[in-house]
């Protein structure tokens, strides 16, 4: 987390009152129950509000597979987590508020890892163009129509035909 400390500290010289946009990304322990996740998130939110921050955007935590296992402590035991609930929050706050928030997140036991860094107000998620589908010449085209025609042109017995005709004329 040294990177974050530096990122915050480098703007520390002046303009302490200027609001800056920050983003938090966090991993909630996979052992937390579904209903407790919301509690953890609201705890982070209330902490931001307490520091006088205002929210810009949010990504609800969802179960994600991790690229490598993260070690965490549960009581006295060490646990290797290969998955977790990953969520994020974007907010605006003062430098001191961000610092205080970082400390409070460090103390939060239900978070196995978090990141806090400065970002921009705009939506940073990339909107990729829909991948163009390659045109593939299909060789296994299903020809439905001719087969149906074949079915209808099946030989019908004379008796059946006569019967059908009689049924129609009788009406």
């Amino acid at each position: 987390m040294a990177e974050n400390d530096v990122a915050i500290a480098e703007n520390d010289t002046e303009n302490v009152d200027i609001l800056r946009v920050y983003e938090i990304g966090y991993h909630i322990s996979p052992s937390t129950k579904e209903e407790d996740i919301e509690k953890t998130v609201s705890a982070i939110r209330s902490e931001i509000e307490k520091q006088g921050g205002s929210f810009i955007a949010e990504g609800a935590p969802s179960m994600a597979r991790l690229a490598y296992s993260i070690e965490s402590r549960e009581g006295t035991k060490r646990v290797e987590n290969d998955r977790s609930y990953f969520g994020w929050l974007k907010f605006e706050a003062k430098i001191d508020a961000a610092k205080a928030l970082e400390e409070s997140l460090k103390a939060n036991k239900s978070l196995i890892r978090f990141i806090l860094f400065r970002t921009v107000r705009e939506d940073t998620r990339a909107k990729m163009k829909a991948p163009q589908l390659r045109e593939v010449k299909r060789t296994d085209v299903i020809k439905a129509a001719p087969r149906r025609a074949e079915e209808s042109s099946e030989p019908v017995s004379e008796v059946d035909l006569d019967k059908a005709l009689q049924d129609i004329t009788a009406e």
Partner: protein
Amino acid sequence: MSNNILTQNDIQHVDYKDIDLLKQFINPHGRVMSRKKTNLTAKQQRAVEAAVKRARFMALLPYIQK
């Protein structure tokens, strides 16, 4: 006109959560590709680098892949 993924798709910001985008800038071992391969501008390359490092820390991307 530079011909790279970011310019082509008109991407101004590189987010560490966009794993599928970032994966296009790392090689099979998980290392960040050079500017020769990515064709990014210096500014874009720095942004990608920062995003990849954040994604690695948050275990969204691997540090190494065998």
